[in-house]
């Protein structure tokens, strides 16, 4: 598994290809690779100019590591990758990606969903929407995000 918490952007194609190549050479005989990319969405009112993503260095890597290890335990995964950015991002930019590889697609899809659900509510990231006038609003956690975790109990 590989976990990266970084300010820099990443090349989705390169990361996907490298992940697939690593899986292919691992001898895991994986037949399915699922990738998910999160992109910064503009606000509905259209006045958001950027998203500031704060994180807790140290705990972030640790929390993502625990979540990913749990996914590897629950599903028959050949490998998993999580990249999550922090800092100032503008709408349209890639914020994160998840990749999972498994022998069959259902494991790969489910594990990717699990990783996304847990990253949303259990990895220490906080988003602030910055508007044109220089003010900012912290994005509030939604009850639905917390509810999403119950399906994995």
């Amino acid at each position, binding site marked *: 598994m590989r976990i990266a918490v970084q300010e820099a952007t990443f090349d989705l194609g390169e990361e996907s290809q490298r992940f697939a190549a690593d899986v292919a050479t691992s001898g895991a005989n994986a037949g399915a690779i699922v990738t998910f990319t*999160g992109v910064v969405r503009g606000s509905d009112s259209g006045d958001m100019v950027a998203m500031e*993503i*704060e*994180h*807790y260095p*140290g*705990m972030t890597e*640790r*929390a993502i590591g625990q979540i990913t290890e749990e996914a590897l335990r629950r599903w028959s995964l050949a490998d998993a990758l999580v990249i*999550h950015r922090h800092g100032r991002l503008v709408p349209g930019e890639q*914020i*994160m990606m998840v990749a999972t590889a498994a022998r069959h697609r259902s494991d790969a899809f489910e594990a990717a969903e699990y990783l*996304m659900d847990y*990253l*949303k*509510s*259990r*990895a*220490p*990231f*906080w*988003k*602030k929407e910055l508007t044109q006038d220089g003010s900012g609003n*912290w*994005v*509030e*956690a939604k009850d639905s*995000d*917390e509810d999403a975790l119950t399906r994995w109990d």
Partner: protein
Amino acid sequence: MDILYFAWVRERIGLPKEKIETTAGTVRELVGELSARDPRYAAAFADLSALRVALDQDLSDFDASLEGVREVAFFPPMTGG
């Protein structure tokens, strides 16, 4: 003990990190001590249901013991992904 604040908790208190001496036995007692210090802390800790706490970088709860803990972090519910 190192105390860390993130997101609006950091903004409300006005600093990201501080070192304190405390005799608090639990997180809740520590919150009580901090809240008594200054209105900024009292404002940040006014509604504990809107806060999360991590002890030595593991999510915990407000009734947890602080024995042996070196780092306490307070922050709002996470919004990653």
